């Protein structure tokens, strides 16, 4: 690959004529490596995952979206370590949407569920190891020695005894005809040179220089910029509008009706927005009676339904009736917005021969399918480029804005970039579902839980997105973190009541665990007090059969100085939750201002066991970020719905956590499980209950609803 070659040319080279479907694919026997297509002249392309150029550059294809979670560093580290590459020569490019880059476990090219490392830990290492063995074989053939006498390290293959060596770049011209090994040998953890190290992120320099290209920054020659008027009421659509005034605005080119709105295409965004303001649209549809109060009532009514059994062990009802100490409580959590800092946007261009999309997307397979459908072009004529994502959190799994860009590209014949205003973004989200839960739990005289009956009323995300995964009518996401409760509870039942409302719902960082952890961990705290047992001790006494979880709980509590006295008005709260195969425990320290009702979280101590760590610095920053994300929701966030539409429209009426509200965060990594766990999401679920439990410790008031707004705190203080 010539150093001057553009990213696009590189992709075309790397993918030219690739007849072989997947480089590393999962078979019943585990992962197998296939060779890639013929290499471009001078390059060595041992699989679709990497290319080695004569100038020593190792380019790793990153088939996951970089939305801050560090995959553009951690995934190349997996390849480079096994390859024995010189890290300074390693670069990455984002893979185009292509069958070859489908996730080997999911069978789709998408990023979510904290799966990037979990699903690619072995495949990418195998891709690196296979390439290393091929380079060694090439050198051995050249020297006419057995491969066992050669060694790869730091971008060079050398003979173990003789003074002979070839750089990887030199070997690219000698590797022809070397077949990929059937079973490349992976390193033992002791042999890792990169994995486990705090390697600086590859994406940071361009994010600091300002050069990083997000979807918002895409520029295509001849491009129009579009703004879209979206319906004020959920589910409404445009009935009529008038183009005349908009077309008079300088720079406005075309007005186009879309299924869910009206778009103004212009030479600049301000012109397009000016056009949107004067369209005089008449809308029809929607339900003006929809608001928070009517939704609350619907959920409350649904709570009386018995729902579908998601889990049943033993007989919790009998245990409850027989128990001396018992507690029944109802918990309610609101709809939440994603509020990625980069508002939704997408750029598309459709000609008779070709369709190209530039999208900050978490869902390449979905975008490509949409592009094929709307352009009417076959897969090989559709190119989907993934840019950097200015936040994702699940929102960018959806393809609604992509559809708008494609429809406008088709209608205008020009490249079109659709940019949503912040108000569009807030009001046309796929929200974290509102939910209502009721738990009835019982204790024996030893302070052990004897029974736990749990009911979750929650709209279904999976019914829309992955209907095949609905088991017996149960949305697994809605009950995650409860149906697989980590505590020893002999009698457990979990029922799911699906409620369908017009409010669209979608994946929001940590999905069902974002609400269920709050319910379970608040309940655990309340039960501990009921039993007269310290909340940490209470949890430990129900984690006897789970040494990894036990260790995480212990670590967080010790590091936080659990039990040490605090001044009055301050409190410490604890929570533990396992999600996405990772155990996380947190201790939050809060101060409650009795006058203003403000909760200030000063310190959060986290213990995390995500198994083998690829890059500890990235793991720590993900947990720091997740704490802020979860805390923002715990203290401030709630989507306001009135008169059929979403009122929350900008940071003026849906504010996020700001620096003056952010706590000091300590992250302690615990070595426990031997399989990698996820890291993007598991830090979110425990923070809200840890804070609510800390507020209880500080002021003696329980909160079974979020957010812990000053208003809610003041109301509770009045009662105590």
């Amino acid at each position, binding site marked *: 690959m010539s150093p001057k070659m553009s990213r696009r040319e590189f992709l075309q080279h790397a993918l030219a004529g690739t007849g072989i479907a997947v480089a590393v694919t999962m078979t019943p026997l585990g992962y197998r490596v296939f060779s890639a297509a013929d290499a471009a002249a001078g390059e060595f392309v041992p699989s679709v995952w990497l290319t080695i150029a004569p100038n020593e550059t190792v380019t790793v294809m990153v088939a996951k979206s970089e939305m801050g979670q560090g995959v553009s560093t951690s995934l190349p580290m997996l390849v480079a370590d096994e390859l024995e590459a010189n890290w300074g020569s390693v670069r990455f490019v984002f893979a185009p949407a292509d069958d070859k880059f489908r996730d080997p476990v999911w069978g789709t090219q998408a990023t979510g569920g904290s799966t990037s490392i979990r699903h690619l830990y072995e495949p990418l290492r195998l891709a690196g190891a296979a390439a290393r063995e091929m380079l060694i074989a090439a050198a051995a053939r050249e020297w006419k020695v057995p491969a066992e006498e050669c060694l790869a390290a730091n971008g060079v293959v050398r003979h173990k005894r003789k003074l002979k060596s070839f750089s990887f770049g030199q070997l690219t011209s000698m590797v022809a005809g070397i077949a990929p090994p059937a079973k490349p040998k992976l390193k033992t953890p002791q042999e890792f040179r990169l994995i486990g190290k705090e390697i600086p992120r590859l994406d*940071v320099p361009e994010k600091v220089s300002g050069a990083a290209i997000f979807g918002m920054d895409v520029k295509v020659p001849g491009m129009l910029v579009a703004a879209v008027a979206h319906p004020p009421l959920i589910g409404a659509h445009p009935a009529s509008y008038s183009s005349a005034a908009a077309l008079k605005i300088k720079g406005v080119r075309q007005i186009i009706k879309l299924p869910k709105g009206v778009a103004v295409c212009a030479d600049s965004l301000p012109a397009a927005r000016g056009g949107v303001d004067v369209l005089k649209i008449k809308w029809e549809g929607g339900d003006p009676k929809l608001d928070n109060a009517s939704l609350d009532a619907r959920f409350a009514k649904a709570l009386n339904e018995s729902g579908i059994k998601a889990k049943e062990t033993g007989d919790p009802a009998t245990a409850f009736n027989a128990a001396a100490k018992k507690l029944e409580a109802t918990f309610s959590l609101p709809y939440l917005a994603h509020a990625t*800092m*980069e508002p939704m946007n997408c750029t598309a261009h459709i000609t008779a021969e070709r369709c190209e999309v530039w999208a900050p997307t978490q869902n390449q397979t979905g975008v490509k399918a949409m592009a094929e459908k709307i352009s009417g072009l076959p897969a090989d004529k559709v190119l989907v480029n993934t840019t950097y994502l200015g*936040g994702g959190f699940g929102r960018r799994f959806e393809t609604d804005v992509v559809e708008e860009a494609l429809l406008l590209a088709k209608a205008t014949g020009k490249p079109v970039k659709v940019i949503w205003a912040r108000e569009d973004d807030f009001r046309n989200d796929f929200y974290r579902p509102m939910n209502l839960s009721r738990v009835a739990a019982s204790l024996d005289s030893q302070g052990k839980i004897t029974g736990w009956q749990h009911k979750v009323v929650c709209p279904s995300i999976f019914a829309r997105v992955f209907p095949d995964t609905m088991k017996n009518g149960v949305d697994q996401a809605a009950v995650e973190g409860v149906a697989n409760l980590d505590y020893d509870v002999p009698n457990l039942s979990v029922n799911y009541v699906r409620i369908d409302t017009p409010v669209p719902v979608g994946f929001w960082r940590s999905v069902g665990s974002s609400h269920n952890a709050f319910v379970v961990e608040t309940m655990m705290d309340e039960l501990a007090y009921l039993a007269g047992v310290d909340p940490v001790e209470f949890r430990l006494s129900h984690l006897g059969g789970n040494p990894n979880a036990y260790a995480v709980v212990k670590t967080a509590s010790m590091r936080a100085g659990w039990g040490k006295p605090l001044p009055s008005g301050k409190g410490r709260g604890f929570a533990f939750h396992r999600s996405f195969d990772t155990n996380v425990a947190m201790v939050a320290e809060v101060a409650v201002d009795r006058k203003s009702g403000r909760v200030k979280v000063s310190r959060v101590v986290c213990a995390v066991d995500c198994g083998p760590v690829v890059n500890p610095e990235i793991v720590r920053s993900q947990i720091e970020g*997740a704490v802020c994300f979860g805390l923002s929701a715990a203290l401030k966030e709630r989507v306001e719905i009135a008169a059929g539409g979403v009122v929350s429209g900008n940071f003026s009426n849906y504010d996020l956590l700001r620096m*003056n509200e*952010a706590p000091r965060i300590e992250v302690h990594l615990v070595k426990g499980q031997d399989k990698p766990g996820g890291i993007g999401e598991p830090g979110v679920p425990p923070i809200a209950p840890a804070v609510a439990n800390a507020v209880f410790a500080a002021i003696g008031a329980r909160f079974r609803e979020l957010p812990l707004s000053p208003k809610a705190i003041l109301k509770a203080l009045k009662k105590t």
Partner: protein
Amino acid sequence: MISLTVNGKKYQVDAAPDSKLLWVLREQLGLTGAKFGCGIGMCGACTVLVDGKARRSCITPVSAVKGKKVVTIEGLPENHPLKVAWIAEQVPQCGYCQPGQMMQAAGLLNEHPKPTESEIDSAMSGCLCRCGTYQRVKSAINRAAGKGKKP
């Protein structure tokens, strides 16, 4: 035509006087470092320096910067203590808010070369970061100000 000085270069742009500086920078000058986040001055993603002071370019009419010096993230030198500190502390996650954070921090350091914790909080709390990099932003500012590694 309005004349502007951005990152030390003089430009003539064809824009209405009330056009917002952010879109002139992004669409007409091709400087996409300053980001659009809210358009109402509440997130800080669009922050640039105007005569050394941090300003929200999404609500600043281009006419207001006539004859003034505008600096965007692209104009902050690579070896600027803030850029060096941002890399050392590995601040960015998604990175979208970071140009705004850095320009706000640059304005802060112009005013307070050794800011206190509360000066940092009050200057920086207008810059939202959905990824939650606040702790690292703080460390990086302290590092750039020569105030030791961690707060």
